[in-house]
């Protein structure tokens, strides 16, 4: 059951991604990207990353995709009246690069036969910690301990992005 569900999520993610890239209409692209994020959230859930699954849904599937929809509607781009695919030359170039890229990535994975259910010391320790501290606590402890400085810098980054966004989107007075 676990394997079947996981493979269903994986297949959904890949299928929805292919549909997303091939849609003319940006709005349908956004919808299928949301499907991709739902499917990957399911995969995160089944890979013992519960907190990541939740924020993937809330932040990506919710907030960022709504931002995309807002921009599409604001600029009135929700109709597919121009084909934005590149010409045959660009298509061949892009396809060749993509195939080479996939070849390199898959080449690094095949030949490593998977062991039966993984039981590395770190993975086992992670599961034990999750059982003891809860799935949020196991992420929160290093985040507010070892990585506290990084968290602060991320806050500064978000502040900078807010200021930059307002500056860019404001109409110039000239």
């Amino acid at each position, binding site marked *: 059951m676990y394997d079947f569900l*996981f493979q269903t999520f994986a297949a959904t*993610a*890949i299928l929805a*991604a292919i549909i*997303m*890239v091939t849609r003319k209409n*940006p709005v349908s*692209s956004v919808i299928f*990207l949301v499907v*991709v994020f739902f499917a*990957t959230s399911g995969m*995160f859930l089944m*890979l*013992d*990353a519960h*907190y*990541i699954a939740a*924020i*993937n849904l809330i*932040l*990506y599937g919710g907030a*960022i995709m709504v*931002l*995309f929809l807002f*921009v*599409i509607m*604001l*600029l009135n*781009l929700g109709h597919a009246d121009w084909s*934005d*695919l590149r010409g045959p030359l660009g*298509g061949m170039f*892009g*396809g060749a*690069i*993509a195939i080479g*890229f*996939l070849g390199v990535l898959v080449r690094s*994975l095949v030949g*490593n036969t*998977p*062991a*039966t259910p*993984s039981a*590395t010391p770190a*993975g086992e*320790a*992670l599961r034990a*910690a999750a059982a003891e501290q809860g799935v949020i606590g*196991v*992420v929160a402890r290093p*985040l507010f301990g070892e*990585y506290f400085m990084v968290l602060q810098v991320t806050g500064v*980054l978000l502040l900078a*992005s*807010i200021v*930059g*966004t307002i500056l*860019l*989107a404001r109409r110039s007075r000239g």
Partner: protein
Amino acid sequence: MSDGLGVSGLGTPGLIALFVSAILFTIGVIGVLLRRNAIIVFMCIELMLNAANISLVAFSRLHGIEGQIFVFFVMAVAAAEAAVGLAIIIAIFRHYEVVDLDRFRALKW
């Protein structure tokens, strides 16, 4: 690669996740290379970030919680990047009235 640090310690779901990650990343690359609509190109970049997140989560089963911490920061940076990128697209649209990437050639020779 069987010392507990290679991909063979991941188990079947982890290995499937790595393959899905590779395929999603490649689809994102194809989208960036073949589409000219700036918003769809931007969505493909988000797809590539998500593919990288899948890899990080799969490896966090093997190496401990740090992978999930990295995913958290990747998401924070992606949120900031989405906001700034969409603001740039809006600013460009005000100037050119289109979002066709081939029309923006001020920085090309």
